Structures are given as C-alpha cells and as structure tokens.
C-alpha cells in the first residue's frame, strides 16, 4: 500500500492580489513533491481551543517550480476559511497542508492533446496550473482556454494569460463576460454556450481532451453540450464547486 500523504507545515512567502476578492499565496514546503497539474492540497486550520477545520485548494503553480506551491483563493462571503487565508495570513505565517491529492482531474504533456480548458470564475485555477506546466515544457500541443468571468475585475491571471498567448501560436485564450464587459470589448458577452464551444472545437480538430472547472451550473451546461456535440464522455473531465443553483 502507498504511504499516507502526511501533513506538513509550510511557510507563506508571498501574497499578491490577483483579482477582485482573490489572492494568490505562495507557500514554501519542507517536503515538497512534484504534483500533476490539476491536483489539490488540503489545508487545515486549528484554533487555540483545538477546533479544526479543513478545505481543499487547487494548486495554481506548475510542478516545474520546485519547493513551493501557489494557491489562488477567492474569498467567499461569509466563508470560514477563505477570509482567513486572504485577509488574516501575512508573509511569514505558517500554514498546515497535505498533498498533492487527486488523480483524475489532471493533465500533463505526456497525455497529449489537443487540449480544451473551460473555466468559470476561480475554476480557472487548476487549468492555469496545466497552462503554466505546458509553457514550462515548451509544449506545442494545441490548447484553448475558454474562460468565463463576471467582469474585467474578476479575471484571474489576466496579464499572464495575455503574455502566454502572445508568445505561443498554439495557445489561444478566449474570454467571455457574463455581467459587464470592459469598454470597447468585441468578444463574447454571455454565458458559455454550445455555439461558443462549437467554434473552439472546430479550431482544435479531432481527439480533444477537455477539462471543465467552475460552478456546477457552468460545468453541467458545458459538459452536457459537449456530449451532445459528440465529444466522448470519457475525454471530458470535470471539477465542480457549489450547489446545484436551482
């Protein structure tokens, strides 16, 4: 049997604001191991009276970055853990974590492509780990990121996505805004729908591997639409958060 994934005490070495209500924490780990892009860590918080709670956070960074990982945390109104991570933690604080965990919602260059990544909101985080890994490997596997945000203020990794796409003919990043597009925006301004997916799929050709991460309503709509278009269900991997929203 494999050994257990042990808890370890990391140190927060950097905190930066990514988007509205969203920060990235860099955590240096004494027992770092290379993850597969898409995997997560568990975070455990302990109060002085012994009360404990845990959450899972996707790894945002690529495994080529040795010794540390990034978490990107969107603060949930009324949340118990995300406001602590985003507003209370400061550089130098300790954070108890264990990982990497999860063996299905993962992609690395050895799996090949073409690669279709579909994200909504902070669902872009594990997809970013895949794109950063793909770039670090200088891979030319065709890839598209279709990324839905409420408004420009909510776009996570916007500048870095621009830079990655500008430097790479095989990568295209397609944004859509569901509430308020920036001034002068000529791209998509609606929820991700079959027409959008069909456009992107046509560019990618046969044998696409798809990863969808976001709120349940987005993941349901996107994965159902892809199956209806004839994409094999076993090549569509999903990760969801939130209730059904009904």
């Amino acid at each position, binding site marked *: *049997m*494999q*050994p*257990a*994934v042990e808890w370890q*005490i990391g140190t927060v070495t950097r905190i930066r604001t990514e988007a509205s209500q969203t920060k990235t924490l860099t955590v240096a780990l004494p027992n770092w191991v290379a993850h597969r892009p898409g995997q997560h860590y*568990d975070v*455990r*918080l*302990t*109060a*002085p009276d012994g*009360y*404990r*709670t*845990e*959450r*899972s956070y996707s790894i945002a960074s690529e495994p080529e970055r040795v010794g540390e990982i990034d978490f990107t945390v969107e603060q949930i109104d009324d949340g*118990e853990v995300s406001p*602590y991570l985003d507003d*209370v*933690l400061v550089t130098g*604080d*300790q*954070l*108890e974590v264990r990982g990497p*965990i*999860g*063996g*299905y*919602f993962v992609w690395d260059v050895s799996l090949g492509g073409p690669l279709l990544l579909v994200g909504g909101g902070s669902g872009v985080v594990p997809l970013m780990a895949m794109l950063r890994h793909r770039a670090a490997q200088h891979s030319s596997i065709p890839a598209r990121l279709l990324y839905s945000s409420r408004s420009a203020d909510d776009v996570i990794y916007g500048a870095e996505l621009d830079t990655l796409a500008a430097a790479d003919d095989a990568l295209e990043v397609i944004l859509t805004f569901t509430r308020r597009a920036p001034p002068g925006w000529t791209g998509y301004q609606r929820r991700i729908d079959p027409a959008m997916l069909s456009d992107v799929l046509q560019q990618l050709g046969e044998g696409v591997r798809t990863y969808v991460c976001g709120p*349940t309503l987005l993941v*349901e709509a996107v*994965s*159902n639409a*892809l*199956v209806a278009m004839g994409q094999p*269900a*076993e090549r*569509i*991997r*999903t*990760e*969801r*958060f*939130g*209730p*059904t929203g*009904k």
Partner: protein
Amino acid sequence: MISRGFLGRKRPAAVANRLPPGQYLVTDFPVLSAGPTPHTPLDRWSFTLEGLVGAPVSWTWDEFLKLPSQVFTVDISCVTKWTKLDTKWLGVSVDTLLQSVQLDPTAHYVTAFSDGGYTTNLPLAEMVNGQAFIAYQFDDKTLEPEHGGPARLVVPHLYFWKSAKWVRGLRFAARDEPGFWESLGYNMHGDPWKEERYTGD
C-alpha cells in the same frame, strides 16, 4: 500547530458533535462528479445483482419502484469536507434486494457500478442491516440527475464517494477490488470519523 489568528466558526455542541473531524456544515447540496452527468432513459434502466450469487437478478425501473421502500433520514459527509445533516431519502434497502439472491458464502466485498463507468468498492458487512440503500427520491422529490438520479446508492456512514451516483447494480466478490476513486489516491474504506480520506490514511 495553532493557526495564528484563526478562531473558527463555532457550532452549537448538538451540531458540532455530528461533524466528523475536519468537516464543515453545509445547508445546500454541493455537486461533485468526475465527468459529464449520464442521462439514461428509464425504459433502458435496470438494476442488477451479480457476481458471487446463485443466479443474477435484474429489475426494470417499474419493477424496482414496486419493491418495498423506506424513508431514510441520515447525515452525509463528502471527502471534499462538507457535511449535510438530516438528509431525507426514499429508496430500497440493500437488505430488501438481497432477499432475491442466494449469496455465496465467500462474498465479502461489493463493487457498485454505475452509468458512465463509475465504480466503488465496499465491504458487504457494511451494506447490510439497514446501513445502505438505493435511493430514488431526495427531500420528497425525484432525485435530480446531478445528484445521481434516477437512482443512487447511499451508504451514509462512509464518505459520499462510496454512495455511487447513477448506480445500476452491485457485484459481489471475495476480494476487495479498488473502484474509480480508490484507484486514484482515495481510501479503500472511507470512514469519515477516522478521517480515512486518502490512500494510507
């Protein structure tokens, strides 16, 4: 270690005592699944008991609905850390289903299998005596596809990935064979009170 500046959200003892270690309380019903939601028409749906049984048995949807059903009110805990209290289901106890087959004495483990290819493994001893059921209603309503409808296994005392959505049957075996998540780093058993989340826990 104490997390500097963390106090946590205290729950009344009556609730806190029902939360397994590391879990937090939800009142909504989060959805998790590894791929697209299958949509099998009810006229092509069946439920099968197979493997180490005298003769396999299968029910159609209509036949399954005629089996004696029970209301189950149970707490459920997902390995992704949420716990939901007092969930109300209508379904058929595994004990009821087992009355229709002759189990081989060497049958000690069960693989639940589902539309879409999902599988999960459980000890037979933890599926009998009222511990597991096949549910087709949640909260007095038809079970939604996102939550595993038309029917899902519910084994409330284990992490909820063991409660296979879109379940189509149970296969009985002598050995404990890892299912889908159990092959991908998750625990073979999955007891929330022992925090058996991942391989080796």
